């Protein structure tokens, strides 16, 4: 049996791109993790929110995609 290794790059090389990584794994890291900062991170103009990513929808999508991938038996 061998390791199923999903390295996004060869070990030792952090740069480059993430093309070897699935979108689900990427979303899991950049949406679920990373530092959350509160404050004026929502952009308003004249009191109207111009952009606000509704990450709750996104998080639900990730949870479903992840569950279907990992709940099954290989």
């Amino acid at each position: 049996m061998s390791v199923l290794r999903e390295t996004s790059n060869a070990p030792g090389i952090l740069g480059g791109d993430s093309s070897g990584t699935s979108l689900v794994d990427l979303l899991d890291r950049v949406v679920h993790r990373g530092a959350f900062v509160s404050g004026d991170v929502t952009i308003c103009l004249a009191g109207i929110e111009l952009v606000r990513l509704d990450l709750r929808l996104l998080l639900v999508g990730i949870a479903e995609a992840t569950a279907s991938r990992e709940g099954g038996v290989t």
Partner: protein
Amino acid sequence: MTAVGVTGLYAYAIARADLELPDGTGARVLRHGPLALVVKEVPLADLEVDEQDLSEDGALARLVREHDAVARAAAEHGPVLPLRFGTVVPDEAAARRLLDGRREAAARRLDAIGSAREWGVKVLRTDDGQPAAAEPDRSSGAAYLAQRRAALQAAEDASRRAQHVAETVDAAVERWVSDAVRRRGGGQGLLLDVAYLVLKDHETSFVEEIDRLATDLAEAGVRLELSGPWPPYSFAALEGEPDERAP
């Protein structure tokens, strides 16, 4: 509809002020005191993507890959705290306010991470050990209770097994990791989902240990998946930040 021409600063990561970012990312380092914010000016209209489109070639995928690419490029040149996807500030003044409020917390986290990189370890079941969900046996009260007891026992066994796997992996790699964040189990097949912080000098030893573990665990009917290296997403959380993450 966003007004044409309105831009914001997409923020990728917090870093130390001496971070040098290579060309080609499109982002720049906004320095302020001892800290810096890695940012890129973006038209806000570009961020209005369909968040339910999780296809590999959709606009959201492109933004997500870019986020990771910039975080990686920055992490290659110094300690960084990757920010959560979708962090956008209106302008440079807001960027500086963001840093002002977090000097100590960010400095502590950056020191703690140092040159270490994140590696993800998942352990999943490969055997069909999960009993199929059975119709409740209502032939008799005793039969029903026996079935319920068996189901509870199976759940306990699974929980114990997951805990055992977690302890086995932790014990094996403990020498090589400087920090670990374990997540609560997800689907039935996922026994362990942990992020490790590994100093570069220990990386070879860490990966060798993981290879050994993978072989051992395979004989027990589980599969180990290693991903990495990653920028330290799982170790970037700033203390003192109100937790507004969606569940």
